[in-house]
């Protein structure tokens, strides 16, 4: 700096510093550096890793154990009045790839657990458009906001010895979250599909469909299997062979195509679209808009489903997110998980989590 030639230099220097400082401070605030408690995709994924107790490098931070499938979707045209998406045009045949998975961050976990059985799908439409979905076998979710999801991951972390969550912390969470109590009661009593091939998979979250005339309607949807439902015996889950469900699906797929019907459930007046933890009441319309046919199945290492993200907000024209806050939270968390596992490269080993976490 040249020697101060000017008596009024100090205020000018101060002004320069103030302008730079103000911009830097604003940036730091926007970036969340001044509010460490802000819930982000990254902080949610941190909480999931904390819950797992381990990071399985290169694996998804949720639904880590999976299987790649592919096939096609044949539209019957009935969906075209609801949404203008190319997927629903009469006679449209759309290539699909996807991934069956079981919930949890451990890619080596045994299949005999009372957890989400899941299906993720990727519809490849003309013009580079895609519709991606990640669906579970339950019609409701365990919490209704991303903040609660993060808090639940922390409260429900299994103790390394007892394998059970800290009863005090868990009780405190459940006391203030009746929707989570409802979900847990549901999970306890609802049957678990005996195969990936005979499960119904639900969007859970509400979305919005917009048709050719610009009308918009909130919907949920579900894929209903053609294979007959049967249930796993919940009492003997821990005796199920480690990869029983995955092996069973590979065997089923080798016998011929597996089919589901995509059924759209339009919301009725008064249905909450912003709360995935509540089921919509009875008396809803059901519109079967076409058939999903899965023709191929391969283990994840040899398929093409591992290296993509089934972000539920990758949507085609004619479909958009609803006011359900879980959707934004999912999109942010899936992206954070995807970026981490991509940076680590395809799965190698697991390392213990030693990062601290705000409880």
């Amino acid at each position, binding site marked *: 700096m*040249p020697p101060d030639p000017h008596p009024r*230099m100090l205020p*000018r*220097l101060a*002004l*320069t510093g103030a*302008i*730079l400082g103000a*911009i*830097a401070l*604003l*940036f730091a605030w*926007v*970036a*969340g550096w001044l509010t460490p408690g*802000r*819930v*982000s*995709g*990254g*902080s*949610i994924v941190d909480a999931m890793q904390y819950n797992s107790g381990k990071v399985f490098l290169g694996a998804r931070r949720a639904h880590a154990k999976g299987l790649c499938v592919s096939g096609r979707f044949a539209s019957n045209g009935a969906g075209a009045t609801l949404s203008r998406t190319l997927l629903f045009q009469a006679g449209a045949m759309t290539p699909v790839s996807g991934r069956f998975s079981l919930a949890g961050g451990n890619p080596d976990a045994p299949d005999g657990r009372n957890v989400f059985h899941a299906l993720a799908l990727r519809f490849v439409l003309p*013009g*580079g*458009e*895609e519709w991606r979905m990640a669906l579970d076998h339950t019609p409701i979710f365990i919490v209704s906001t*991303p*903040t609660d999801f993060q808090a639940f991951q922390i409260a429900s972390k299994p103790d390394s010895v007892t394998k059970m969550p800290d009863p005090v912390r868990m009780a405190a969470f459940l006391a203030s979250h009746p929707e989570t109590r409802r979900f847990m009661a549901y999970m306890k009593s609802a049957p678990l599909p005996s195969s990936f091939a005979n499960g119904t998979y639900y969007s859970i979250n509400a979305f919005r469909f917009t048709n050719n005339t610009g009308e918009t309607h909130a919907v949920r949807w579900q894929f209903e299997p053609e294979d007959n439902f049967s249930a796993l015996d919940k009492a003997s889950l821990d005796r199920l062979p480690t990869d029983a469900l995955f092996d069973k699906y590979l065997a089923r797929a080798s016998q011929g195509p597996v089919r589901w019907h995509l059924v759209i459930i339009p919301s009725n007046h008064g249905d909450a679209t912003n709360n995935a933890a509540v089921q919509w009441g009875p008396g809803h319309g059901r519109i079967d808009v076409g058939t999903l046919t899965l023709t191929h199945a391969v283990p994840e290492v040899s398929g093409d489903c*591992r*290296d*993509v*993200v089934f*972000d539920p*907000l*990758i*949507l*085609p*024209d*004619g479909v*958009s*997110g609803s006011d359900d*806050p879980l*959707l*934004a*939270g999912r*999109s*942010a*968390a899936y992206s954070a998980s*995807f*970026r981490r*596992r*991509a*940076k*680590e*490269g*395809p799965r190698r080993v697991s390392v213990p989590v030693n990062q601290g976490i705000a409880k």
Partner: protein
Amino acid sequence: MIPPDRYALPARVLHWAMAMMILAMLFVGAGMVSTASWAYPALLTWHRPLGVTILVVAMLRLLVRLTHRAPPLPAALPRLQTVVARGSHYFLYALMFAMPLIGWAMLSAAGTPVQLWPGTILPPILSHSLRLFGWLSWVHGLLGYGFFLLILGHLGAALFHGLIRRDGVLRSMASFGTRSDRARK
């Protein structure tokens, strides 16, 4: 021939338009990854088309820079400052191109559609590769925050010229009056 004392009018207009857009982009980028609220998808929806607009405007700007003379820095400026000024300007130009190109490339490598708005998707510029995506998305973040620091430094230097040295360097970009500065001297 007398060298110009200001940047050409298109250069000045483009400079300030881009300054606003790039600063907005940096705040949008840093803000969206900081939250899991509705703001995450909302900001990301703006991030892609605004970023691609910056790429297009940057091309225009480079063209203007190459076809118009820039005013020289003051002869009295210490050599080191001249070198730093030149060098930082090259970096700023490089980042204007690199940031949007890396953004586009990383989504391509991710196998994710590069959506500008519903129904309009840019073609991928890289083939699908998980490792490349991981690496590029890390570089996009690193260079993004580096870009912010560089812009802060650039602004600091501009204010130093305008408020402390008062040598006409800030005015060469920031004055839009009809009278040339030379006429005022």
